């Protein structure tokens, strides 16, 4: 029988040994993974919600990614190597996105990472990617601070700084008394703050504003407030599910003549399917729309429709574009993680479905062209004025 003191000494000794044995891994310095293999497939990690309440976005990503993979590998891959994705389910929860980041960081085959879906899940994982010198391509992360996480955080998403003022302008063109409902997430709140800022500067009149629960089901009591405040335009800063619910329930509380203005996150065939007739006349600003006459867009829309039997939305097109950009970057690089970052930083005419040839700005975002306005007409999104 060992005495208690003996136990303590043994434990302390073991602790010290362990500390000494692992000195290199204890410092907060860069953790360099082994060099990437020069042969075999090229791997990208995908940190995405495949289960849980955001799972449907992971599913939409898959449609875009699969289409891009077929194109890339069908054309002989990148430098003759096939491209493959390593999917990891995080439920878009930062408790899971961090270990996943650690997993990708330690896997020397992974040349870059795509995701996560929600900005908080991405931003919690950013320090890990930064340390591993691994590009984190958060193509849906519109949070202004996402790319400030470090040199390895890149995004093709519009930021709310660009988007919110455009939304306010759209709303003001539809009515003079704004009632703004925003989902109470980091994204919703940030967009609302920027919206309010712009509205103040421009002298727009906001008669009611309210945060609503993102997964809420019954918005009637909130909408009644907007109705009683005399709103003539409703702004729903929300993803398409909540936006569709709000649109329907607005009619239910008697807001039948009121105009509706939406951000691009509500732009989806799903919005029309979920909202039904109530969506008629709603207007939305988008960066991508399937009616765009550019040949690459027409080609993509046709392929997408043939394969999935529906029109691509912002998330599907964004996923497709993101993977193609990363594949392009690997093609330009020396096949290392650092090379991918350099290719993104130095690329002048990066081919892109969303923006045409573009270059990243200093802040690792895209200078986004002014958005397009669409209106729901006869149950479909059509260009305003068309």
């Amino acid at each position: 029988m060992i005495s208690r003191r003996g136990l303590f000494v043994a434990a302390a000794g073991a602790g010290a040994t362990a500390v000494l044995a692992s000195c290199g891994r204890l410092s907060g310095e860069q953790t360099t993974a082994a060099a990437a293999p020069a042969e075999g497939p090229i791997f990208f990690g995908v940190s995405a919600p495949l289960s849980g309440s955001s799972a449907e976005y992971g599913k939409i990503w898959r449609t875009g990614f699969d289409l891009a993979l077929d194109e890339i590998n069908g054309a002989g891959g990148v430098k003759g190597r096939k491209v493959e994705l390593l999917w990891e389910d995080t439920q878009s929860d930062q408790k899971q996105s961090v270990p996943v980041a650690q997993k990708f960081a330690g896997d020397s085959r992974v040349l870059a990472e795509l995701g996560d879906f929600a900005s908080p899940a991405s931003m919690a994982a950013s320090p890990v990617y930064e340390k591993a010198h691994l590009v984190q391509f958060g193509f849906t992360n519109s949070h202004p601070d996402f790319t400030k996480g470090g040199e390895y955080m890149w995004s093709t998403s519009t930021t709310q700084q660009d988007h919110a003022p455009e939304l306010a302008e759209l709303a003001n063109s539809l009515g003079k008394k704004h009632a703004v409902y925003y989902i109470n997430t980091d994204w919703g709140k940030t967009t609302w703050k920027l919206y309010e800022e712009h509205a103040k500067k421009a002298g727009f009149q906001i008669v009611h504003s309210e945060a609503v629960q993102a997964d809420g089901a019954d918005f009637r009591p909130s909408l009644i407030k907007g109705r009683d405040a005399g709103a003539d335009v409703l702004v729903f800063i929300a993803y398409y599910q909540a936006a569709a619910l709000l649109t329907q329930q607005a009619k239910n509380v008697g807001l039948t003549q009121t105009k509706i203005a939406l951000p691009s996150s509500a732009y989806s065939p799903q919005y029309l399917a979920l909202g039904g007739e109530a969506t008629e006349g709603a207007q939305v600003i988008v960066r991508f729309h399937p009616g765009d006459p550019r040949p690459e867009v027409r080609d993509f829309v046709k392929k997408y429709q043939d394969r999935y039997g529906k029109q691509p939305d912002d998330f599907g097109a964004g996923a497709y574009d993101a993977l193609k950009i990363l594949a392009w970057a690997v093609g330009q690089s020396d096949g290392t993680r650092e090379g991918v970052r350099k290719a993104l930083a130095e690329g002048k005419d990066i081919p892109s479905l969303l923006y045409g040839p573009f270059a990243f700005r200093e802040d690792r975002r895209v200078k986004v062209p002014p958005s397009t306005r669409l209106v729901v007409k006869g149950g479909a999104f059509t260009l305003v004025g068309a």
Partner: protein
Amino acid sequence: MLDTALAGLVNGSSYALLALGLSLIFGVANVINFAHASVFAVGAMSGWWFAVDLGWPLWAVVLGVAVVTGLLGLVINVVAVTPLAKAPPIAALLSTFAVSVVVDNGAQLVFGPETRRFPALLATDNLGLGGLRFGTLDVTILVVAVGLMLLLGWFLRSSRYGRAIRAVAQDRDAAAQMGIPLARVQNLAFVVASVLGGVAGVLGGMYLNNISPTVGSTVGMSAFAAATLGGLGSLPGAVAGGLLLGVVEAFGVSWWGGNARTLITFAVLLIVLWVRPSGLFGKRAPLAAEPMTGTFFGAARTIQLRPWQVAVAAVAAYVVPAVALDDYTVQIGVQVVVYAILALSLTLVSGQAGQISLGQAAPLAIGAYTSALLTTSTGLDFWLSLPIAGVVAAVLSVVLVSPSWRLRGHYVSIATLATGLLVAAAAVNFDWLTNGPSGVAAIPPPTLFGAPVSAPLAVYFLDLTILLVVLLLVVRLRRSTLGRIWSAVREDEVAARSSGIAVADYKSLAFGIGGFVAGIGGALFAQQYSYIDPSVFGISVSLLALTIVVLGGLNSPLGAVVGAIVLVGLPEALRMLQETRMLAYGVLLLAVVLLRPQGLMGKVAR
């Protein structure tokens, strides 16, 4: 005014329908059925399938859904509840939780994760009152809720089986002695309740317009609150609770905004429990039939490790990750350690003092926010923020749970559940303090000997050391006089009180010390992610913590560690399953609860 009240009333009737089923099951089986909300979702999804894909008319849809959800209810009872009849209620609670994980994720695989439109099979805006448009549908929902309550009341009062159900609800043993077939009656109760849940799913689906396989969780928590509000086991209470909650929520939202809904729901619940500990319509039982954890310890003894075994394990915990594991696995190890600390706080509260807490995420969140806010906004050193986090969590835990000292059995669990949700909702709503949904970012890593502790292995060593200290503390406490007093409170509250023990004070102390430990865990949690927001501290964290201690063996501190390794490690080990990962996790969880209701580290005395 009038339209707000009406909107609340209609919304409240879907709570009422769900609460009816919950109350019925509680009355008969003495189980809080966590899977009930999933039954609602299955009702909604299968209703959608019948109506849209198969094009059935409304009556056929309702009939089809009744068959599907009735069968589901039967399966839930046979698979997850009946086998645990002799186990303490806590085991059945966890097994229904496991079932809900299985059903939710199963539905997501079968139907796909998309949100979809539920066809309005009844008119939704053909009537009007005070500017609010409503329709046949809204009236139908209201009438159906009240009608089903009356029908159920008649069935229970007048029919043979109804009387049998009531007899079982009053006294299982006596009913069995009178020759009532317990198994059949309980099956019947589950079928009836689940059919109600399924019908609620169809009506709710039409009312909400949009549904998804996870729709149950949104409505489910409010239904729990409604059932408890009315008094668990009381049918008029369930309906009154549902309608009341609907109306209060509607006015609350109207006054404080839509994001305050959760805050309102659970604040109302706690206040009602404070004034009326058995709910509005519940009868106060003269004595709780049986403590939540009671028979557990009579039957199970914990497996004791010898000191050298503990020493070897501790040494291995330091050495193995350092020499043999990569950073990813070490990162998982960090999570295991933090959850183990959280679980140890429950070993005290639930294992030692017998107070089942479904809200231990609350002190974790309080500790995390305290440390995060102090280190980011005042620049306080992490090491100073650590004890402060513990103390703040301890104090707030005692204050928040204090209204529940008069509560017994399941009401304690529901009150703590409410506390957990309330704290998360407060973190969302109190922007000025917590930064709301944006959370607290850039939390600096602690420094030790001038170097930042941020690499996974360094964080692991730090957290592991604190875990060992906590472990020692818990073991010491259990063997102390205080530990024995807690055991006395747990085993027999009346006897303890008769022997002059100030029961409420000792319960407070358990929540206080437990809160301190969880608060320390929270501080480590915040530093580990360098970013926290309210969504991190959801109900799933509380349930996971409780599952860990029950799985590990409620009364075994080492069990908390073993449970954390298994339950935090499992979802990671299942990663290759991709979309089916959480389904497999649910199935394994269910299997473990069924096979070892006494816990991994408990053994049954023969």
